[in-house]
Protein backbone atom coordinates (compact mmCIF):
# COMPACT_ATOMS: atom_id res chain seq x y z
CA UNK A 1 0.00 0.00 0.00
CA UNK A 2 1.64 3.25 -1.08
CA UNK A 3 1.44 6.15 1.39
CA UNK A 4 -1.13 8.86 0.69
CA UNK A 5 0.13 11.47 -1.78
CA UNK A 6 1.29 14.72 -0.25
CA UNK A 7 -1.43 16.98 -1.59
CA UNK A 8 -4.70 18.53 -0.49
CA UNK A 9 -7.00 16.92 -3.06
CA UNK A 10 -10.54 16.40 -1.84
CA UNK A 11 -12.19 13.39 -3.49
CA UNK A 12 -15.93 13.20 -3.91
CA UNK A 13 -17.47 9.95 -5.01
CA UNK A 14 -20.40 10.34 -7.36
CA UNK A 15 -23.38 7.96 -7.55
CA UNK A 16 -21.86 6.71 -10.81
CA UNK A 17 -18.99 5.29 -8.80
CA UNK A 18 -16.24 7.62 -9.99
CA UNK A 19 -14.03 9.84 -7.89
CA UNK A 20 -13.88 13.51 -8.76
CA UNK A 21 -10.98 15.47 -7.27
CA UNK A 22 -11.54 19.02 -5.98
CA UNK A 23 -8.74 21.37 -4.99
CA UNK A 24 -9.58 23.23 -1.75
CA UNK A 25 -8.14 26.74 -1.51
CA UNK A 26 -6.09 27.79 1.50
CA UNK A 27 -6.07 30.81 3.75
CA UNK A 28 -4.06 33.24 1.61
CA UNK A 29 -6.05 33.25 -1.66
CA UNK A 30 -9.23 33.35 0.36
CA UNK A 31 -8.13 36.34 2.41
CA UNK A 32 -7.07 38.14 -0.76
CA UNK A 33 -10.46 37.42 -2.32
CA UNK A 34 -12.17 38.72 0.81
CA UNK A 35 -10.03 41.84 0.86
CA UNK A 36 -11.01 42.54 -2.73
CA UNK A 37 -14.70 42.04 -1.91
CA UNK A 38 -14.37 44.35 1.07
CA UNK A 39 -12.84 47.07 -1.06
CA UNK A 40 -15.49 46.66 -3.73
CA UNK A 41 -18.27 46.89 -1.18
CA UNK A 42 -16.74 50.02 0.28
CA UNK A 43 -16.60 51.54 -3.18
CA UNK A 44 -20.22 50.65 -4.00
CA UNK A 45 -21.46 52.07 -0.70
CA UNK A 46 -19.38 55.21 -1.09
CA UNK A 47 -20.78 55.95 -4.53
CA UNK A 48 -24.37 55.14 -3.55
CA UNK A 49 -24.19 57.26 -0.40
CA UNK A 50 -22.95 60.22 -2.43
CA UNK A 51 -25.91 59.79 -4.77
CA UNK A 52 -28.40 59.26 -1.94
CA UNK A 53 -27.18 62.27 -0.02
CA UNK A 54 -29.21 64.43 -2.42
CA UNK A 55 -32.45 62.67 -1.48
CA UNK A 56 -32.57 63.83 2.14
CA UNK A 57 -34.37 61.63 4.64
CA UNK A 58 -35.65 59.23 2.01
CA UNK A 59 -32.01 58.85 1.01
CA UNK A 60 -31.00 58.03 4.57
CA UNK A 61 -33.73 55.38 4.73
CA UNK A 62 -32.74 53.86 1.42
CA UNK A 63 -29.11 54.16 2.47
CA UNK A 64 -29.59 52.12 5.62
CA UNK A 65 -31.49 49.44 3.69
CA UNK A 66 -28.64 49.42 1.18
CA UNK A 67 -26.05 49.20 3.91
CA UNK A 68 -27.95 46.24 5.30
CA UNK A 69 -28.22 44.56 1.90
CA UNK A 70 -24.58 45.10 1.03
CA UNK A 71 -23.19 44.04 4.39
CA UNK A 72 -25.32 40.91 4.84
CA UNK A 73 -26.47 39.89 1.37
CA UNK A 74 -23.67 40.80 -1.05
CA UNK A 75 -21.87 37.49 -0.63
CA UNK A 76 -25.04 35.37 -0.58
CA UNK A 77 -26.46 36.86 -3.76
CA UNK A 78 -23.20 36.58 -5.68
CA UNK A 79 -22.44 33.06 -4.50
CA UNK A 80 -25.84 31.66 -5.38
CA UNK A 81 -26.49 33.54 -8.60
CA UNK A 82 -22.96 33.63 -10.01
CA UNK A 83 -21.83 29.97 -9.94
CA UNK A 84 -20.40 30.24 -6.43
CA UNK A 85 -18.15 33.22 -7.15
CA UNK A 86 -18.22 36.60 -5.47
CA UNK A 87 -16.19 39.15 -7.50
CA UNK A 88 -13.18 38.63 -5.25
CA UNK A 89 -13.32 34.86 -5.69
CA UNK A 90 -13.74 35.32 -9.43
CA UNK A 91 -10.50 37.27 -9.57
CA UNK A 92 -8.63 34.77 -7.41
CA UNK A 93 -9.98 31.84 -9.44
CA UNK A 94 -11.98 30.40 -6.54
CA UNK A 95 -15.54 29.24 -6.10
CA UNK A 96 -17.75 27.86 -3.31
CA UNK A 97 -19.41 24.48 -3.67
CA UNK A 98 -21.27 22.12 -1.36
CA UNK A 99 -19.33 19.28 0.21
CA UNK A 100 -20.61 16.92 -2.48
CA UNK A 101 -19.38 19.14 -5.30
CA UNK A 102 -22.79 20.49 -6.28
CA UNK A 103 -23.51 24.22 -6.62
CA UNK A 104 -24.14 26.06 -3.37
CA UNK A 105 -27.77 26.43 -2.26
CA UNK A 106 -29.48 29.46 -0.75
CA UNK A 107 -29.60 28.06 2.75
CA UNK A 108 -25.97 26.91 2.75
CA UNK A 109 -24.78 30.28 1.47
CA UNK A 110 -26.90 32.08 4.05
CA UNK A 111 -25.48 29.95 6.86
CA UNK A 112 -21.86 30.38 5.86
CA UNK A 113 -22.22 34.13 5.47
CA UNK A 114 -24.23 34.72 8.65
CA UNK A 115 -21.70 32.75 10.64
CA UNK A 116 -18.95 34.94 9.19
CA UNK A 117 -19.72 37.11 12.22
CA UNK A 118 -18.30 34.40 14.49
CA UNK A 119 -15.31 33.81 12.22
CA UNK A 120 -14.42 37.47 12.63
CA UNK A 121 -14.32 37.19 16.44
CA UNK A 122 -12.55 38.36 18.48
CA UNK A 123 -10.84 40.53 15.87
CA UNK A 124 -9.71 40.31 12.26
CA UNK A 125 -10.96 36.81 11.38
CA UNK A 126 -9.00 35.24 14.23
CA UNK A 127 -11.27 32.25 14.79
CA UNK A 128 -11.87 31.82 11.07
CA UNK A 129 -8.14 31.79 10.34
CA UNK A 130 -7.46 29.31 13.13
CA UNK A 131 -10.15 26.96 11.90
CA UNK A 132 -8.99 27.38 8.30
CA UNK A 133 -5.37 26.59 9.17
CA UNK A 134 -6.07 23.46 11.21
CA UNK A 135 -8.72 21.91 8.94
CA UNK A 136 -7.53 19.41 6.29
CA UNK A 137 -9.73 21.13 3.70
CA UNK A 138 -9.23 24.69 4.94
CA UNK A 139 -12.76 25.25 6.20
CA UNK A 140 -13.63 28.18 8.40
CA UNK A 141 -16.39 27.82 11.02
CA UNK A 142 -19.09 29.00 8.63
CA UNK A 143 -18.02 26.40 6.08
CA UNK A 144 -18.14 23.68 8.72
CA UNK A 145 -21.70 24.53 9.67
CA UNK A 146 -22.94 25.04 6.13
CA UNK A 147 -21.14 22.02 4.68
CA UNK A 148 -19.42 24.07 1.99
CA UNK A 149 -15.95 24.11 0.51
CA UNK A 150 -13.95 26.84 -1.24
CA UNK A 151 -12.12 25.31 -4.19
CA UNK A 152 -10.02 26.45 -7.11
CA UNK A 153 -12.05 26.75 -10.28
CA UNK A 154 -10.99 24.21 -12.87
CA UNK A 155 -8.98 25.87 -15.61
CA UNK A 156 -9.15 24.67 -19.22
CA UNK A 157 -6.08 22.58 -20.07
CA UNK A 158 -4.07 22.88 -23.23
CA UNK A 159 -2.59 19.63 -24.38
CA UNK A 160 1.10 19.39 -25.26
CA UNK A 161 2.43 17.28 -28.14
CA UNK A 162 4.28 14.04 -27.44
CA UNK A 163 7.73 14.30 -29.07
CA UNK A 164 8.18 12.41 -32.33
CA UNK A 165 9.82 9.00 -31.95
CA UNK A 166 9.34 5.56 -33.51
CA UNK A 167 6.76 3.58 -31.54
CA UNK A 168 8.25 0.87 -29.32
CA UNK A 169 6.93 -2.08 -27.44
CA UNK A 170 8.63 -3.20 -24.27
CA UNK A 171 9.37 -6.91 -23.77
CA UNK A 172 7.74 -6.79 -20.29
CA UNK A 173 4.34 -5.59 -19.06
CA UNK A 174 3.92 -2.19 -17.40
CA UNK A 175 1.48 -1.60 -14.58
CA UNK A 176 -0.94 1.34 -14.68
CA UNK A 177 1.14 3.74 -12.62
CA UNK A 178 4.20 3.02 -14.75
CA UNK A 179 2.21 3.62 -17.92
CA UNK A 180 0.91 6.94 -16.65
CA UNK A 181 4.36 7.96 -15.43
CA UNK A 182 5.90 7.30 -18.84
CA UNK A 183 3.06 9.11 -20.65
CA UNK A 184 3.37 11.98 -18.23
CA UNK A 185 7.10 12.19 -18.80
CA UNK A 186 6.62 12.31 -22.58
CA UNK A 187 3.84 14.87 -22.49
CA UNK A 188 5.51 17.23 -20.02
CA UNK A 189 8.94 17.15 -21.58
CA UNK A 190 8.42 20.61 -23.05
CA UNK A 191 8.40 22.05 -19.51
CA UNK A 192 11.76 20.46 -18.63
CA UNK A 193 15.25 21.45 -19.67
CA UNK A 194 17.09 18.88 -21.79
CA UNK A 195 19.51 18.15 -18.96
CA UNK A 196 16.73 17.52 -16.46
CA UNK A 197 14.87 15.28 -18.95
CA UNK A 198 18.07 13.29 -19.51
CA UNK A 199 18.69 13.04 -15.80
CA UNK A 200 15.16 11.75 -15.13
CA UNK A 201 15.21 9.28 -18.01
CA UNK A 202 18.65 7.97 -16.99
CA UNK A 203 17.07 6.54 -13.83
CA UNK A 204 15.31 4.04 -16.07
CA UNK A 205 18.28 3.31 -18.31
CA UNK A 206 19.12 0.01 -16.55
CA UNK A 207 15.65 -1.62 -16.63
CA UNK A 208 15.20 -0.44 -20.23
CA UNK A 209 18.65 -1.86 -21.08
CA UNK A 210 19.81 1.21 -23.06
CA UNK A 211 22.68 3.62 -22.53
CA UNK A 212 21.73 6.61 -20.35
CA UNK A 213 21.97 9.14 -23.20
CA UNK A 214 19.48 7.20 -25.32
CA UNK A 215 16.96 6.77 -22.48
CA UNK A 216 14.90 9.86 -23.38
CA UNK A 217 14.17 8.81 -26.94
CA UNK A 218 13.55 5.24 -25.74
CA UNK A 219 10.92 6.49 -23.26
CA UNK A 220 9.33 8.72 -25.89
CA UNK A 221 9.10 5.69 -28.14
CA UNK A 222 7.43 3.66 -25.41
CA UNK A 223 4.96 6.53 -24.86
CA UNK A 224 4.22 6.62 -28.59
CA UNK A 225 3.64 2.91 -28.49
CA UNK A 226 1.22 3.28 -25.56
CA UNK A 227 -0.70 6.08 -27.28
CA UNK A 228 -1.07 4.09 -30.47
CA UNK A 229 -1.09 5.36 -34.05
CA UNK A 230 -2.44 8.87 -34.46
Amino acid at each position, binding site marked *: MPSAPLDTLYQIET*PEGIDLPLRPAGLLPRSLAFAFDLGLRGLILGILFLALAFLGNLGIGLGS*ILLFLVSWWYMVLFEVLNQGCSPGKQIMGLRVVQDDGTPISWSASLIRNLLRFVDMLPFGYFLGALSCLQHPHFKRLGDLAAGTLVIYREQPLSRPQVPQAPALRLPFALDLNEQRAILGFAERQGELSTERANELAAILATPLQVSPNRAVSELNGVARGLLGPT
Partner: protein
Amino acid sequence: MKQSLFESRHQPQWQAFAAQLTQLEQGKAKTGDFADFPHHYRRLCQHLALAQERGYSSYLVDPLQQLALRGHQQLYRHRSQLGANVLGFVLADFPRLVREQWRFVLAASMLFFGSLLGIALLVYLFPDLIYSIVSPQQVAEMQSMYDPDASRLGRAAERASSEDWMMFGYYVMHNIGIAFQTFAAGLLFGLGSVFFLFFNGLIIGAVAGHLTQIGYGQTFWSFVIGHGAFELSAIALAGAAGLQLGWALIAPGHLARSESLRLAARKSVQMICGVMVFLLIAAFIEAYWSSTTTVAPWIKYLVGAALWLVMAAYLLFAGRNHHAPE
Protein backbone atom coordinates in the same frame (compact mmCIF):
# COMPACT_ATOMS: atom_id res chain seq x y z
CA MET B 1 -7.66 -0.29 -26.99
CA LYS B 2 -4.93 2.26 -27.59
CA GLN B 3 -5.43 5.74 -26.29
CA SER B 4 -5.49 7.53 -29.66
CA LEU B 5 -8.13 5.22 -31.06
CA PHE B 6 -10.28 5.61 -27.93
CA GLU B 7 -9.91 9.34 -28.19
CA SER B 8 -10.70 9.72 -31.86
CA ARG B 9 -13.71 7.44 -31.50
CA HIS B 10 -15.33 9.37 -28.64
CA GLN B 11 -14.07 12.91 -29.15
CA PRO B 12 -17.28 14.08 -30.94
CA GLN B 13 -19.43 12.81 -28.08
CA TRP B 14 -17.34 14.67 -25.53
CA GLN B 15 -17.52 17.85 -27.54
CA ALA B 16 -21.30 17.57 -27.85
CA PHE B 17 -21.54 16.99 -24.10
CA ALA B 18 -19.35 20.02 -23.41
CA ALA B 19 -21.60 22.15 -25.62
CA GLN B 20 -24.67 20.94 -23.72
CA LEU B 21 -22.98 21.80 -20.46
CA THR B 22 -22.13 25.30 -21.58
CA GLN B 23 -25.76 25.86 -22.51
CA LEU B 24 -26.98 24.55 -19.16
CA GLU B 25 -24.48 26.65 -17.23
CA GLN B 26 -25.55 29.79 -19.02
CA GLY B 27 -29.18 28.96 -18.26
CA LYS B 28 -30.18 28.92 -21.91
CA ALA B 29 -31.53 25.39 -21.76
CA LYS B 30 -35.02 24.67 -23.04
CA THR B 31 -36.85 21.84 -21.33
CA GLY B 32 -37.21 19.50 -24.29
CA ASP B 33 -33.59 19.64 -25.45
CA PHE B 34 -31.96 17.90 -22.55
CA ALA B 35 -33.93 14.73 -22.09
CA ASP B 36 -30.82 12.74 -23.06
CA PHE B 37 -28.49 14.65 -20.74
CA PRO B 38 -28.37 11.98 -17.98
CA HIS B 39 -27.61 9.37 -20.62
CA HIS B 40 -24.72 11.43 -22.02
CA TYR B 41 -23.47 12.07 -18.53
CA ARG B 42 -23.43 8.40 -17.57
CA ARG B 43 -21.62 7.54 -20.81
CA LEU B 44 -19.01 10.16 -20.03
CA CYS B 45 -18.58 8.69 -16.56
CA GLN B 46 -18.05 5.29 -18.12
CA HIS B 47 -15.43 6.71 -20.49
CA LEU B 48 -13.69 8.38 -17.58
CA ALA B 49 -13.62 5.14 -15.61
CA LEU B 50 -12.25 3.29 -18.64
CA ALA B 51 -9.59 5.91 -19.26
CA GLN B 52 -8.44 5.72 -15.63
CA GLU B 53 -8.50 1.95 -15.56
CA ARG B 54 -6.47 1.62 -18.74
CA GLY B 55 -3.83 4.05 -17.55
CA TYR B 56 -4.35 6.67 -20.27
CA SER B 57 -2.38 9.88 -19.89
CA SER B 58 -3.44 12.60 -17.45
CA TYR B 59 -3.95 15.02 -20.31
CA LEU B 60 -6.85 12.82 -21.40
CA VAL B 61 -8.12 11.90 -17.93
CA ASP B 62 -8.09 15.42 -16.49
CA PRO B 63 -10.35 17.06 -19.12
CA LEU B 64 -12.72 14.12 -18.82
CA GLN B 65 -12.72 14.64 -15.06
CA GLN B 66 -13.54 18.31 -15.53
CA LEU B 67 -16.41 17.44 -17.82
CA ALA B 68 -17.69 14.86 -15.33
CA LEU B 69 -17.51 17.40 -12.51
CA ARG B 70 -19.46 19.97 -14.51
CA GLY B 71 -22.01 17.33 -15.46
CA HIS B 72 -22.29 16.24 -11.82
CA GLN B 73 -22.98 19.82 -10.80
CA GLN B 74 -25.74 20.17 -13.35
CA LEU B 75 -27.38 16.80 -12.71
CA TYR B 76 -27.28 16.74 -8.92
CA ARG B 77 -27.85 20.39 -8.05
CA HIS B 78 -29.80 20.95 -4.82
CA ARG B 79 -33.27 22.30 -5.10
CA SER B 80 -33.22 25.59 -3.25
CA GLN B 81 -35.56 25.45 -0.29
CA LEU B 82 -35.89 29.13 0.39
CA GLY B 83 -37.13 30.86 -2.71
CA ALA B 84 -39.20 27.89 -3.84
CA ASN B 85 -42.29 27.92 -1.63
CA VAL B 86 -42.35 31.09 0.40
CA LEU B 87 -46.09 30.85 0.95
CA GLY B 88 -45.96 27.33 2.34
CA PHE B 89 -43.12 28.40 4.62
CA VAL B 90 -44.96 31.40 6.01
CA LEU B 91 -48.30 29.61 6.38
CA ALA B 92 -47.17 26.32 7.86
CA ASP B 93 -43.51 25.39 7.92
CA PHE B 94 -42.20 28.24 10.05
CA PRO B 95 -44.69 27.89 12.94
CA ARG B 96 -44.23 24.12 12.76
CA LEU B 97 -40.49 24.56 13.04
CA VAL B 98 -40.89 26.88 16.02
CA ARG B 99 -43.12 24.32 17.77
CA GLU B 100 -40.73 21.52 16.92
CA GLN B 101 -37.88 23.46 18.54
CA TRP B 102 -39.99 24.49 21.54
CA ARG B 103 -37.26 23.66 24.03
CA PHE B 104 -34.84 26.17 22.54
CA VAL B 105 -37.60 28.72 22.01
CA LEU B 106 -38.62 28.35 25.64
CA ALA B 107 -35.04 28.67 26.89
CA ALA B 108 -34.34 31.71 24.73
CA SER B 109 -37.63 33.36 25.69
CA MET B 110 -36.97 32.83 29.38
CA LEU B 111 -33.50 34.32 29.06
CA PHE B 112 -34.66 37.31 27.06
CA PHE B 113 -38.05 38.10 28.58
CA GLY B 114 -36.91 36.98 32.01
CA SER B 115 -33.98 39.38 32.10
CA LEU B 116 -36.15 42.08 30.52
CA LEU B 117 -38.96 41.87 33.07
CA GLY B 118 -36.67 41.21 35.99
CA ILE B 119 -34.48 44.22 35.42
CA ALA B 120 -37.51 46.39 34.57
CA LEU B 121 -38.98 45.55 37.95
CA LEU B 122 -35.65 46.14 39.71
CA VAL B 123 -35.14 49.52 38.04
CA TYR B 124 -38.73 50.47 38.87
CA LEU B 125 -38.13 49.65 42.54
CA PHE B 126 -34.57 51.01 42.75
CA PRO B 127 -34.43 53.91 40.27
CA ASP B 128 -30.70 54.57 40.63
CA LEU B 129 -29.90 51.16 39.23
CA ILE B 130 -30.46 52.47 35.69
CA TYR B 131 -27.19 54.41 35.79
CA SER B 132 -25.14 51.29 36.36
CA ILE B 133 -26.62 49.71 33.20
CA VAL B 134 -27.15 52.55 30.74
CA SER B 135 -24.89 55.58 30.40
CA PRO B 136 -26.32 58.93 31.57
CA GLN B 137 -26.29 60.43 28.04
CA GLN B 138 -28.38 57.57 26.73
CA VAL B 139 -30.79 57.93 29.62
CA ALA B 140 -31.21 61.61 28.83
CA GLU B 141 -31.69 60.79 25.17
CA MET B 142 -34.36 58.24 25.96
CA GLN B 143 -36.12 60.66 28.28
CA SER B 144 -36.32 63.38 25.67
CA MET B 145 -37.61 60.86 23.14
CA TYR B 146 -40.53 59.72 25.22
CA ASP B 147 -41.26 63.02 26.93
CA PRO B 148 -45.08 63.28 27.09
CA ASP B 149 -44.83 67.00 26.31
CA ALA B 150 -43.24 66.38 22.95
CA SER B 151 -45.82 66.05 20.21
CA ARG B 152 -44.17 63.17 18.35
CA LEU B 153 -42.86 59.83 19.38
CA GLY B 154 -40.03 57.53 18.60
CA ARG B 155 -36.44 58.18 17.75
CA ALA B 156 -37.15 61.37 15.79
CA ALA B 157 -38.90 64.36 17.24
CA GLU B 158 -40.50 65.75 14.09
CA ARG B 159 -41.60 63.33 11.40
CA ALA B 160 -42.83 63.79 7.90
CA SER B 161 -43.69 60.85 5.67
CA SER B 162 -40.17 60.75 4.24
CA GLU B 163 -38.96 60.34 7.80
CA ASP B 164 -41.16 57.30 8.23
CA TRP B 165 -39.17 55.89 5.33
CA MET B 166 -35.94 56.81 6.98
CA MET B 167 -36.92 55.14 10.21
CA PHE B 168 -38.17 52.07 8.38
CA GLY B 169 -34.77 51.63 6.78
CA TYR B 170 -33.05 52.25 10.08
CA TYR B 171 -35.18 49.73 11.95
CA VAL B 172 -34.72 47.06 9.28
CA MET B 173 -30.97 47.43 9.35
CA HIS B 174 -30.52 47.80 13.07
CA ASN B 175 -32.92 45.07 14.22
CA ILE B 176 -32.09 42.41 11.64
CA GLY B 177 -28.42 43.07 12.33
CA ILE B 178 -29.01 42.38 16.05
CA ALA B 179 -30.99 39.24 15.23
CA PHE B 180 -28.24 37.93 12.95
CA GLN B 181 -25.63 38.60 15.62
CA THR B 182 -27.68 36.84 18.27
CA PHE B 183 -28.01 33.84 15.98
CA ALA B 184 -24.44 33.62 14.73
CA ALA B 185 -22.88 33.98 18.16
CA GLY B 186 -24.65 30.74 19.09
CA LEU B 187 -21.89 28.90 17.29
CA LEU B 188 -19.67 29.55 20.33
CA PHE B 189 -21.34 26.63 22.15
CA GLY B 190 -24.46 28.75 22.59
CA LEU B 191 -22.68 31.19 24.90
CA GLY B 192 -22.85 34.06 22.41
CA SER B 193 -26.59 33.73 22.01
CA VAL B 194 -27.07 33.57 25.76
CA PHE B 195 -24.99 36.72 26.12
CA PHE B 196 -26.84 38.71 23.45
CA LEU B 197 -30.27 37.59 24.67
CA PHE B 198 -29.43 38.52 28.23
CA PHE B 199 -27.72 41.77 27.28
CA ASN B 200 -30.51 43.01 25.01
CA GLY B 201 -33.11 42.03 27.58
CA LEU B 202 -31.15 43.95 30.20
CA ILE B 203 -30.94 47.18 28.20
CA ILE B 204 -34.54 47.15 27.01
CA GLY B 205 -35.84 46.20 30.44
CA ALA B 206 -33.80 48.87 32.20
CA VAL B 207 -35.05 51.59 29.84
CA ALA B 208 -38.64 50.40 30.18
CA GLY B 209 -38.47 50.31 33.97
CA HIS B 210 -36.84 53.73 34.15
CA LEU B 211 -39.30 55.45 31.84
CA THR B 212 -42.27 53.96 33.67
CA GLN B 213 -40.82 55.00 37.00
CA ILE B 214 -40.39 58.66 36.01
CA GLY B 215 -43.94 58.78 34.67
CA TYR B 216 -43.35 58.52 30.93
CA GLY B 217 -45.04 55.11 30.89
CA GLN B 218 -48.01 56.18 28.80
CA THR B 219 -45.95 57.45 25.85
CA PHE B 220 -43.42 54.64 26.06
CA TRP B 221 -45.71 51.64 26.36
CA SER B 222 -48.22 52.86 23.78
CA PHE B 223 -45.29 53.31 21.40
CA VAL B 224 -43.64 49.96 21.87
CA ILE B 225 -46.54 47.59 22.42
CA GLY B 226 -47.52 47.33 18.74
CA HIS B 227 -44.27 46.41 17.06
CA GLY B 228 -42.90 44.78 20.21
CA ALA B 229 -45.03 41.74 19.48
CA PHE B 230 -42.98 40.91 16.43
CA GLU B 231 -39.69 42.58 17.29
CA LEU B 232 -39.13 41.05 20.72
CA SER B 233 -40.34 37.60 19.75
CA ALA B 234 -38.09 37.74 16.68
CA ILE B 235 -35.05 38.40 18.86
CA ALA B 236 -36.03 35.51 21.10
CA LEU B 237 -36.46 33.22 18.09
CA ALA B 238 -33.09 34.27 16.65
CA GLY B 239 -31.60 33.41 20.03
CA ALA B 240 -33.37 30.05 19.94
CA ALA B 241 -31.83 29.32 16.54
CA GLY B 242 -28.42 30.21 17.96
CA LEU B 243 -28.92 28.01 21.02
CA GLN B 244 -29.81 25.17 18.67
CA LEU B 245 -26.44 25.58 16.95
CA GLY B 246 -24.64 25.62 20.27
CA TRP B 247 -26.53 22.61 21.59
CA ALA B 248 -25.63 20.63 18.47
CA LEU B 249 -21.99 21.14 19.46
CA ILE B 250 -22.44 20.49 23.18
CA ALA B 251 -24.59 17.36 22.86
CA PRO B 252 -24.33 15.94 19.36
CA GLY B 253 -25.91 12.60 20.35
CA HIS B 254 -24.85 9.70 18.18
CA LEU B 255 -23.59 11.96 15.35
CA ALA B 256 -20.15 13.42 14.81
CA ARG B 257 -20.02 17.03 16.02
CA SER B 258 -19.47 18.38 12.52
CA GLU B 259 -22.41 16.40 11.15
CA SER B 260 -24.70 17.38 14.00
CA LEU B 261 -23.73 21.03 13.49
CA ARG B 262 -24.52 20.82 9.78
CA LEU B 263 -27.98 19.39 10.43
CA ALA B 264 -28.75 21.94 13.14
CA ALA B 265 -27.55 24.78 10.92
CA ARG B 266 -29.91 23.73 8.15
CA LYS B 267 -32.85 23.89 10.55
CA SER B 268 -31.82 27.06 12.28
CA VAL B 269 -31.34 29.01 9.07
CA GLN B 270 -35.00 28.38 8.27
CA MET B 271 -35.83 29.83 11.64
CA ILE B 272 -33.74 32.88 10.76
CA CYS B 273 -35.71 33.36 7.55
CA GLY B 274 -38.88 33.48 9.62
CA VAL B 275 -37.21 35.92 11.98
CA MET B 276 -36.43 38.20 9.05
CA VAL B 277 -40.10 38.19 8.02
CA PHE B 278 -41.08 39.03 11.61
CA LEU B 279 -38.60 41.90 11.74
CA LEU B 280 -39.78 43.34 8.43
CA ILE B 281 -43.33 43.35 9.78
CA ALA B 282 -42.11 44.90 13.03
CA ALA B 283 -40.16 47.63 11.22
CA PHE B 284 -43.21 48.42 9.14
CA ILE B 285 -45.47 48.70 12.19
CA GLU B 286 -42.85 50.70 14.08
CA ALA B 287 -42.32 53.22 11.31
CA TYR B 288 -45.91 53.72 10.22
CA TRP B 289 -48.20 52.88 13.14
CA SER B 290 -46.35 53.12 16.45
CA SER B 291 -45.13 56.62 15.74
CA THR B 292 -48.53 58.18 15.01
CA THR B 293 -49.81 60.40 17.79
CA THR B 294 -53.24 61.14 16.40
CA VAL B 295 -54.57 57.87 17.82
CA ALA B 296 -55.59 57.70 21.46
CA PRO B 297 -53.35 55.55 23.66
CA TRP B 298 -56.10 53.06 24.54
CA ILE B 299 -56.58 52.24 20.86
CA LYS B 300 -52.87 51.62 20.63
CA TYR B 301 -52.95 49.34 23.64
CA LEU B 302 -55.89 47.48 22.09
CA VAL B 303 -54.21 47.07 18.73
CA GLY B 304 -50.95 46.11 20.44
CA ALA B 305 -52.66 43.43 22.49
CA ALA B 306 -54.35 42.15 19.36
CA LEU B 307 -50.97 41.95 17.59
CA TRP B 308 -49.47 39.96 20.47
CA LEU B 309 -52.45 37.60 20.31
CA VAL B 310 -52.16 37.25 16.53
CA MET B 311 -48.45 36.50 16.83
CA ALA B 312 -48.95 33.92 19.57
CA ALA B 313 -51.86 32.29 17.75
CA TYR B 314 -49.83 32.17 14.56
CA LEU B 315 -46.89 30.44 16.19
CA LEU B 316 -49.10 28.05 18.18
CA PHE B 317 -51.77 27.07 15.70
CA ALA B 318 -50.75 27.81 12.10
CA GLY B 319 -50.05 24.76 9.95
CA ARG B 320 -51.53 22.27 12.37
CA ASN B 321 -54.43 20.94 10.34
CA HIS B 322 -53.23 19.81 6.91
CA HIS B 323 -50.29 17.47 6.43
CA ALA B 324 -49.23 18.24 9.97
CA PRO B 325 -46.37 15.90 10.90
CA GLU B 326 -47.74 15.16 14.36
